């Protein structure tokens, strides 16, 4: 994601997908057949939103499967799973919260990219994405693997939403993008390869998006709220002014 934001100002789905396709095509490993990519399957087994209100957790269960065909001539390698959760406009992740070592010690690295402002409403914000790096183990491409599961729990917070007549705004969070990166010891140098599940694999996952209903202000309230706010402020002001002038030392007679 760091590379993405070096080339693009903000996160858009189409730009991101083009970027990922380019990254993958330029990150194939020497000595590994091009069609070997089908051997690695990363899928989302479950995606859900836990909790209520403005602070919730996005729970994702990721499954990694290594196909039947192994590559015996492949040298030693170390792999990690990279999960990129793109977030819609209405929610954000707190980068400082994600640094908490107690909660996130299972991950090699976590970072938030994009708009990390914690305070602005959604209509003054841009999108962000959270990138997880999870250790998948060493030499895993040698052996068939029916499925290793990784569970991610991402704390998310709702931004203030644009005004809506219904009083609520629905924000949809899609599945994360997943890939595996392996560092392979080459004859002359180390190389890094990226693997990603073919597009048709994604269609097999169980849930595409989760919906988060967030309260929003109602435009119909604007008129009378402003008037009553200022009238209340005025009444309070007059009361305090009257009390101060009447009960201060300036006008009361001596004892």
């Amino acid at each position, binding site marked *: 994601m760091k590379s993405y934001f070096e080339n693009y100002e903000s996160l858009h789905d189409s730009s991101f997908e083009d970027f990922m396709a380019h990254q993958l095509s330029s990150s194939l490993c020497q000595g590994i057949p091009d069609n070997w990519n089908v051997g690695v399957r990363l899928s989302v087994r479950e995606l859900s939103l836990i909790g209520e209100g403005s602070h919730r957790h996005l729970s994702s269960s990721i499954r990694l499967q290594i196909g039947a065909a192994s590559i015996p001539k492949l040298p030693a390698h170390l792999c990690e799973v990279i999960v990129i959760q793109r977030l819609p406009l209405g929610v954000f992740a707190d980068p400082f919260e994600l640094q908490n070592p107690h909660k996130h010690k299972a991950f090699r690295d976590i970072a938030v990219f994009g708009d990390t402002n914690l305070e602005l409403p959604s209509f003054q914000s841009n999108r962000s994405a959270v990138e997880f790096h999870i250790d998948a183990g060493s030499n895993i491409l040698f052996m068939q693997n029916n499925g290793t599961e990784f569970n991610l729990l991402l704390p998310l917070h709702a931004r203030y939403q644009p005004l809506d007549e219904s009083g609520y705004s629905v924000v949809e969070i899609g599945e994360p993008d997943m890939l595996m990166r392996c560092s392979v010891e080459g004859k002359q140098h180390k190389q890094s390869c990226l693997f990603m599940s073919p597009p048709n694999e994604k269609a097999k996952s169980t849930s595409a998006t989760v919906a988060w209903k967030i309260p929003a202000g109602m435009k119909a309230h604007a008129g009378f709220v402003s008037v009553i706010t200022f009238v209340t*402020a005025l009444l309070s002001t007059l009361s305090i002014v009257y009390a101060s002038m009447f009960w201060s030392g300036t006008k009361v007679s001596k004892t």
Partner: protein
Amino acid sequence: MISLKPRSILLISAIFRVGLILFGEWQDTHVEVRYTDVDYLVFSDAASLMASGQSPYKRTTYRYSPLLAFLLIPNSFTSRCWGKFLFSASDLFVGLFIRIILKQRKVPDDLCTYSMLIWLFNPFTFTIGTRGNCEPIVCAMILWIIICLNNGNVVQAAFWYGLIVHFRIYPIIYALPIIIFLDPCFFRSGTKPLLSDWTSDQGKARQINSELTDKCVVSDALKSTFTRSRILFGLISGTVFLLCTGFFFRLYGWEFLHEALLYHLTRTDPRHNFSIYFYHIYLNYERELSVLEKLISFLPQFIVQLVLILCFAKDLVFCFFVQTVAFVAFNKVITAQYFVWFFCLLPLILPWSNMKLKWKGLCCILLWMGAQTHWLLWGYLLEFKGKNVFLQLWMASLLFLAANTFILIVLIRHHNYGPVFRQHTDLKTTKTT
């Protein structure tokens, strides 16, 4: 009657606070809900950045003077609780200063003790420092300024005043009452001003000591506006403020100026808070508010501050108190930590109030807490249950303003107003302290 000695009270308070800090560390590690204030993490991160030679403003939402990050640098290499101990120590100093200020006015020991206890054992105030909020430092400095002024030490008062305005901005509202307070009738070159003492009549029927003010003839007002004390105070405090601000601007540039100063002067937050303006701001956030709208929202604050200053400046501590209550109540953003600003002044005005705890005092306490709790309930439903209760929450904030206004008026009504100082010429035989 309480017979605890001040030293014992401070010792028990200190032990209690150390216990709370240690409990807080345990809670942070073992319980989902943290004891430590999220602001403390912000301060600590900013201090780490400063310790490594970087700008503290690289830490998002750090909106304080670099002085605060500097004070917390030891968090990085001693204990991460260093800051909490510092803030709690300031908290204890506030209790001590409350006693000093009241003893300066010859308030009896038992009332001094009650006043200390009101601050030191108020659940709101002892959690503030132990959770890592820096407001006790501000409170301690404000009270120290009062002590200096009571002692006639204008230079020192001015120094700390310039520093505190740099540190926290809001004490700028005390500038005009301090200038009025430095009345040449009482502040004379080479002579310590005479404090008017508390008397047992303060607790009875309301009295006004206006006779002493009549002798300062109005016709001398213009001549005495620019006195040595006032000029000295203005120059020294202004210089200290500009020096601090200039120094940190040199180090951290526009980021410092924007985050530590300008942000607070222009802050409007559409997110829910105790202020009556929050929903109006949210509903109009997508469009730019007109100059007239901004002026209308600023006018109540301006008028109230001006009237309170003109009516009560001679009774400086009471003036500070009512100004602070009103400032917080009419502000565009109100968070719970702002309440500490007037909590530290409340024990100083109570000996001059003829309002009894039973039942008027108790009613005021319950009314204020009730209005706050009512707001918090709606806030909980909005933030933690996801219910659209914006309208109800806004109405709760109106009620909270109404409660604050009512209590302020009751306190004004029951206060025995009187100038802090008395004149030298009428009391030649009175010894100065």
